[in-house]
């Protein structure tokens, strides 16, 4: 079936899969956002225990999505993997450190003899939630603003210095944080994951005090979110973008490129706009209606749709998704950075399993969330974080 697809179709298909994984990752980072609110929403040990346990039952899902996002990106666009990871070394390393800290924290937080005390592991969770989300946002920001690197396949014949992808900034990716648009996206991701974290707790916790605090906190995070998110969207749409000539493969600057992309692809514009509307709908409905718990699903779906459209905006319609401001022609596009047609076909068969994966995740989620997390529920559960 996939053998009949053209190479460029497969490249589009895989860019969509990578985009979907990236979008689901941002949605699932509600766990990270929630981790930055443990002390804001939980004022005593019991309340904090409820919050940590509610989040802790989902952390592995987010973590696995991150790992799979990385693996799928590697398999489908290996030149991105070698260029960005090997180049923007310090950004990616910092992100990874944040996630290493997270992976042990739930399990070890409340165990006796954990050596460093619960507070240490709660700080780990906070670092993961704050720095991890901001840095991921900043790193994705460079998909629209560019980075300084060069790519030359011929280097492999140079025995003295055979490296193909070379980063040109001594800050090794941290320079992305000097760009306003990247920072706005980083902060947007951070605040959005906090909003999602709050909505998740509202959806999943049975404790009136925490719920009351969560609602207050929701408004307090939504205002700054809009203050960074809307300027990001405006900057994105008015900015110069990195366009590719599909015949020659030459990359050039184009004014209003991302706005043009939206206009050229109406379904994408629909995703983009409906994503924003759903995000806001989930928040506003939760703020205005008493005893309304389902805002998480609207804002979560909106987040997924919006981030999905953001990735597609970066890669579709003859756009360089990982542009180089140092050497325009080194910019990565979905056609010059992808795996071979054979590999994309083979991987496409594997992608047919994705619906099954989603199905059992939904089953497990529903089975475990039938009962909300409360102090009583934790007493009866044999595995408590």
């Amino acid at each position, binding site marked *: 079936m996939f053998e009949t697809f053209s190479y460029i179709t497969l490249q589009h298909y895989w860019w969509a899969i990578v985009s979907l994984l990236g979008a689901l990752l941002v949605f699932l980072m509600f766990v990270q956002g929630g981790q930055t609110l443990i002390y804001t929403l939980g004022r005593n040990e019991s309340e904090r225990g409820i919050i940590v346990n509610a989040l802790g*039952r*989902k952390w*592995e*899902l987010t*973590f*696995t999505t*991150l*790992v*799979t*996002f*990385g*693996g799928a990106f*590697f*398999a489908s666009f290996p*030149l991105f*993997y*070698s260029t*960005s*990871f*090997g*180049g923007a070394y310090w950004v*990616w*390393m910092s992100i*990874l450190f944040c*996630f*290493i*800290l997270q*992976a*042990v924290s739930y*399990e070890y937080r409340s165990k006796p*003899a*954990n*050596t*460093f005390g619960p507070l240490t592991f709660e700080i780990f969770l906070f670092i993961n939630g704050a720095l991890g989300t901001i840095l991921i946002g900043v790193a994705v920001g460079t998909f629209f603003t560019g980075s300084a690197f060069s790519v030359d*396949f*011929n280097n*492999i*014949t140079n*025995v*003295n*210095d*055979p*490296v*193909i*992808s*070379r980063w040109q900034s001594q800050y*090794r990716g941290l320079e992305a944080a000097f760009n306003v648009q990247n920072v706005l996206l980083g902060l947007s991701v951070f605040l959005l994951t906090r909003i999602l974290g709050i909505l998740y707790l509202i959806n999943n916790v049975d404790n009136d005090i925490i719920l009351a605090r969560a609602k207050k906190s929701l408004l307090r995070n939504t205002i700054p979110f809009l203050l960074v998110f809307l300027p990001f969207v405006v900057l994105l749409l008015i900015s110069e973008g990195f366009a590719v000539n599909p015949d020659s493969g030459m990359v050039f600057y184009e004014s209003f490129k991302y706005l043009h992309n939206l206009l050229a692809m109406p379904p994408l514009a629909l995703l983009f706009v409906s994503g924003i509307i759903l995000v806001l709908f989930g928040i506003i409905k939760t703020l205005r209606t008493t005893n309304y718990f389902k805002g998480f699903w609207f804002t979560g779906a909106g987040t997924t749709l919006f981030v999905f459209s953001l990735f597609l905006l970066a890669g579709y319609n003859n756009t360089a998704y990982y542009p180089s401001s140092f050497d325009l022609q080194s910019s990565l596009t979905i056609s010059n950075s992808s*795996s*071979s047609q054979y*590999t994309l076909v083979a*991987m496409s068969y594997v*992608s047919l399993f994705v619906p099954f*994966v989603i199905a*059992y995740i939904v089953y497990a989620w529903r*089975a*475990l969330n*039938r009962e909300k997390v409360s102090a009583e529920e934790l007493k*009866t559960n*044999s*595995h408590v974080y």
Partner: protein
Amino acid sequence: MNNCQNPDNMLENIDLSLVNWSRAQFALTAMYHWIFVPLTLGLSFIIAIMESLYVRTGREEWKRITKFWMILFGINFAIGVATGIILEFEFGTNWSNYSWFVGDIFGAPLAIEGILAFFLESTFIAIMFFGWGKVSKRAHLISTWLVAFGSNLSALWILVANAWMQNPVGMRFNPDTARNEMVNFWDVLLSPFAVNKFLHTITSGYVLASIFVIGISAWYLLKNREHSLAKRSMLVAAVFGLISSVMLIFSGDGSAKQIARVQPMKFAAFEGLYEGEEGAPLITIGVLSAAPGETEAQNVKDFALKIEIPNFLSYMAFGKFDAFVPGINDLTYGNPERNILSVEEKISRGKIARESLAQLKDARDQQDMTTYNRIKEKFSDPEFTDSYFKYFGYGFLSSPESAVPNVPVAFYSFHIMVLLGFYFVLLLMLILVALYRNGIEKNRFLLRMAIWTIPLTYIASQSGWVLTEMGRQPWVIQDMLPTMAAVSHINSSSVQITFFLFAVLFTVLLIAELRIMFRQIKIGPK
């Protein structure tokens, strides 16, 4: 083309400190990760068997036993995840050239691992831990089994990827993209090298986990507590461990034959065999020493002590007692009688392959399509690919000797692994006999031995990976890409900093993990 003008200066510009720090970092993170993985691979099945016994018999005691081992499983699993995420991304951060040169083949197993295995594992682990009473008994049991299958399935894909680095198959070099591209997925997945490696590695994890369970149970018996839990756990673990150890030995033998076939240099190195011979003996126990007149640590070509089994190495390599096993010298300096090319010859062929690639680029730059097409054709001509491009990686080597791995490391890691492996089989048998005779509580020596064998399983397990990875040097992908050409373009001080950050962080986490684990064992089942 500044690269080919001055062959004498070759490699002088490659930052060896960067290469070494990158290797050190990968070794550090991989070895830390591997402390936790084998236990996950084996304990997940042992727990699944215990829970099956609970569901079948309906006895609460089995549920209590299952839940106890699950606590230890969870503690180990969390740090396994923490140390694992970095490995996937390190291929990009520290081995950028590698990621491009072979990413078309190597990336696929990593992605499949995520899609097929990690989600299975992480989704059902949540049900395994939190689902008691929330899903039916049957659904819970199935979840526990799926965790075991998921974790072992993830091992399959990463081991397929590693096997491919030892034995690159199913791909073709594309000169336009300067990378290897997959042409046959099934060759990659089902190569005999990959199958043996998978079986050998997972069964090593099963044996490790069995001895972990037996050792902890032995501690309870010595302390005169938890008799029922300890003896039942021991029985399950010993049976599971013994069956696994049979598979471990067979797959180990299979792996050795594969190495003899595709990595003869590694094979010769782990036996310290310098001069090839027919009917080569197998050294069971040996101590290396410098040959007369030699002082360099790398050149320990003699033995201070050795115990041999005649002809057995030939049998282990090729299934025939009189087969010729090439030695390090044959492989380095060539042996025309046996049709073995010298490394020097391979280096010159590798250079020709590289020059062809450079010429192709020049022709393309100058729009000289006739020359371009002529050279491009060469890259699909089997004569050129099998006799020249096959040695592309050798073009990076500076001397024939640089094709030899560190012999003492390969030799000792191999022999430690094998000797300990046979000792584990013996221990498992003794435990089963003692259990059968119902006298294990009285055999305090055996119980103590079981406890002290736990660290030995970790040593054996780590030795296996040291042999695999250090024995492959100087290659990151056998014959195709040397390790030094695979690194990222980065200053070595950055890698040094991350190395120490990892070393400190992982050590701190390991201390926490061990203390939590010991405390939970002391507390015992609820």
